């Protein structure tokens, strides 16, 4: 059998149920009644002890959402979502107020342990088998609708960095949150973002003050556990003048037959000379081999390079979800600001990915770079959709875009839909895209050197995505590489 044919066969046989994060944690949960109404919005706000203005903001979003239509322009197909058949709030029941991490439900701690997420600072600090010089990572763990633990809070506080659940920030730093919330993704932005604005339950809040370089990587780990529960987290990261922060986001969910909705909003604000690096490894449950179940991932992520010389960099490795609808974008408002988007999107089984970015050049001498690597296997559809625009005043705007797609098998599709809009003659945009399959000859060359078929495909795929993997922080890069292999299991081994 020809090498590629063999690979295709293997991919066809792929059992997506090998998803290794598909277990369910047995914890008692505190849920709002099913369905969505003003009362539910009030319920969520009340649960969170929010200030009055926040409730009003949510209600306004909710009313707005009622008038909106679900977008249909993306190349994704899914049955109509019944928004009244979802739980909008689920929180693990607390036995009492937590004084320390030791009081977190041990089942939840076990969950994160199983997922390889270090919540126990002491373990981290003890440095058991930790290579020298490894960076420490502060983690905010979001379990269904609430944050269950945030590590390293004290050390960060000493550095002046605020890193806490957004629900907490709303109570402790209401004015700071109010100043920035919705300033990048307005409550009325789009159907899913508006829904999120009405019902978001938790997420992370980060504020890095002027001149501070955040002393460690920050990360949030999202876990959907409950059945029929939508997850609507909201992340807000502000890097004040001259500040720097690197933030990582990871996501998994149990394996369930029902589709689950995830509609998150992430807002980044970078002031003068500030830099935010945002990395995602998205591994929500993709559904089984027949396309049953899986997460609907409708996410709005946008960064505002508000200050001069600011920089926002998005790196994403998208391997999970039944549907991914996601366009992490940069508004390059400040002069000399720059935006980056590095993406690996892998689809297998019946997954549908419609992802890309928008680079909106508004300021002078702004630059952006887009590197997208799509890999389609099985019966999946993988679309890159991107916009690069230079407005009238965006003198000297620069963009370089490279979009490459790799096809494994003839039952899948790879699509590239870039938009380039230049309203300034000094703007220079360059775009390149290719679509191809893994060359039989290259595979044979590897196999002749002793690599198995799977190893050969894995090697070639890793080479294909290398430019993007390099952008991830080291710890994540290793994890991502493994994840890529698992996602293409059967073809990569």
């Amino acid at each position, binding site marked *: 059998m020809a090498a590629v044919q063999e690979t295709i066969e293997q991919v066809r046989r792929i059992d997506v149920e090998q998803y290794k994060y598909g277990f369910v944690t047995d914890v008692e949960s505190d849920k709002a009644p099913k369905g969505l109404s003003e009362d539910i919005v009030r319920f969520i706000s009340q649960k969170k002890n929010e200030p009055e203005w926040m409730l009003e903001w949510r209600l306004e979003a909710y009313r707005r959402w009622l008038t909106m239509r679900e977008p249909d322009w993306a190349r994704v197909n899914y049955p109509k979502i019944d928004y009244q058949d979802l739980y909008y709030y689920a929180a693990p029941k607390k036995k009492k107020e937590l004084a320390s991490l030791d009081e977190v439900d041990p089942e939840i701690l076990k969950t994160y342990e199983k997922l390889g997420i270090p919540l126990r600072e002491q373990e981290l600090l003890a440095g058991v088998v930790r290579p020298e010089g490894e960076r420490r990572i502060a983690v905010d763990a979001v379990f269904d609708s609430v944050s269950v633990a945030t590590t390293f809070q004290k050390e960060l506080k000493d550095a002046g960095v605020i890193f806490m659940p957004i629900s907490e920030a709303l109570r402790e730093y209401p004015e700071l949150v109010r100043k920035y919330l919705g300033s990048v993704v307005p409550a009325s932005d789009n159907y899913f973002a508006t829904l999120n604005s009405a019902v978001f339950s938790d997420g992370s809040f980060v504020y890095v003050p002027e001149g501070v370089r955040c002393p460690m990587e920050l990360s949030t780990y999202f876990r959907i556990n409950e059945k029929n529960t939508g997850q609507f987290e909201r992340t807000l990261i502000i890097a004040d003048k001259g500040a720097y922060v690197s933030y990582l986001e990871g996501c998994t969910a149990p394996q369930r037959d029902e589709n689950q909705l995830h509609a998150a909003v992430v807002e980044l604000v970078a002031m003068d000379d500030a830099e935010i690096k945002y990395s995602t490894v998205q591994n929500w449950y993709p559904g089984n081999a027949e396309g049953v179940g899986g997460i609907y991932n409708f996410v709005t992520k946008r960064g505002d390079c508000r200050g001069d010389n600011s920089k926002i960099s998005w790196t994403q490795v998208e391997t999970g979800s039944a549907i991914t609808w996601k366009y992490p974008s940069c508004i390059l408002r400040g002069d000399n600001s720059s935006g980056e988007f590095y993406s690996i999107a892998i689809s297998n089984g019946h997954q549908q990915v419609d992802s890309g970015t928008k680079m909106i050049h508004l300021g002078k001498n702004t630059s952006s770079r887009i590197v997208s690597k799509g890999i389609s296997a099985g019966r999946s559809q993988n679309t890159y959709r991107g916009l690069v625009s230079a407005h009238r005043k965006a003198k000297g705007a620069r963009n370089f875009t490279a979009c490459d797609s790799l*096809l494994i098998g*003839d039952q*899948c599709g*790879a699509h590239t839909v870039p938009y*380039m*809009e*230049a309203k300034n003659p000094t703007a220079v945009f*360059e775009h390149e895209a290719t*679509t191809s*399959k893994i060359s039989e000859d290259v595979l044979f060359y590897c196999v002749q050197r002793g690599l198995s078929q799977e190893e050969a495909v894995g090697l070639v795929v890793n080479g294909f995505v290398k430019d993007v993997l390099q952008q991830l922080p080291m710890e994540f890069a290793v994890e991502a590489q493994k994840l890529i292999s698992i996602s293409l299991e059967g073809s990569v081994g």
Partner: protein
Amino acid sequence: MNAPVAALKTEAEQGLATAFAAAAPGLPGGAAVAAARAAAFDAFAQAGLPHRRLEAWKYTDLRRLMRDAKPLAPPPEAAAKAEAATAGAVIAGLGFRRLVVVDGVFAPDLSDLADLEPGLAIASLADQLAADAPLLPAAFADVLPAAEPAVTLNGALVRGGVVLTVAPGAVVARPLHLAFITTGTAPVAVYSRSLLTLGAGAKLSLIETHEGPEGVDYQVSAVLGLDVGDGASLDHVKITREGSAALHVASLIASVGAAATLTTCGFTLGGAVVRNQAFVRLKGAGTNATLSGVSLLAGRQHADATLMLTHAAPGSTSREVFKAVVDGAARAAFQGKIAVEQAAQQTDARMMARALLLSEEAEAYSKPELEIFADDVQCGHGATTGTLDDQLKFYLMARGIPAKEAEALLIQAFVGEVIDGIAQEGLREALTAATVAWLEARDA
């Protein structure tokens, strides 16, 4: 008329309804054609003029750009024909066989019909429609997207055009020149449709020119159907040089057979709003298609080149190069989609779109797109937007060439890549001369 006029909101849409009602009884066609026209207008009326929320018309919003609908041009009288005598002057003297279409009607009396090569037949669409020939031959059925608005509206209102047939194996040595001209000083609407059937193994060169009165806001809708048989070879050039106030919407529909060769090049100079859309389906295996275009735009011109190229069978190769030079407050849009169907393994497709912006207010939009369902393919596209290379300009100036001249040279080089791909030398020269004239007008 039973069109749901409710959908027709704009003045232009209502005007079209009026124009159709007024003209329909006088348009050529038997009962079947009349019914097809009515159905086409109904279909158009359901959707109205294409607008920016339709992805294919994102950058050319006819609801906004077409302010009103002009009355249909009457069949040409003596005055119109006299005016049409010089049609296609831009490429006169190249020895091509000229066929003139005046105000949408084929004029045999103005056309060179002497000594037709064996295998070449030339007829009038109006005559064929009168005999109830279909508005669109079956060969094109799977080439067009469903309810394509421009072609649908054209079907309702078409007055005439040329029908060309080349017998299998016939090699037509003398290029055919379809010279389309709109006459008079009154703003009119002209709907023409021409069809070519190129038999298996046949060869032909076909050149279209489109022109009309300067400063008159007339409207042109032109459809050209190209049915290229197995192993046939067609070389096609379209020169759009409408008057500066004209609206021009042209649709090229091509069905390409196995091992055939299709080369088509569009050259757009004139017109206030120009939309050149091409729907090309490579139906047979091992075809070779080269599609290219150049737009030279200034003032407030708007030109849109939209290409929908489908590889439907294995082993075909396609190459696309589209360039736009945009000056003044003009706007250039390019949308190019290469679709590779599952059966089309071993497809090799490459597309390049480049825009050159020459002024502060110039705008360029491009959307090169790939839609791939076969895995054993090599497909790629590239797109660039930018202004003239300062270093090159400086280099030329350092050699003593004045700035304007240096710019002109660089622009000519930019456009030259496409013009150089045209087979006939005379045509290349004519288009180069047109480019030079455009550059001189720019400097003036």
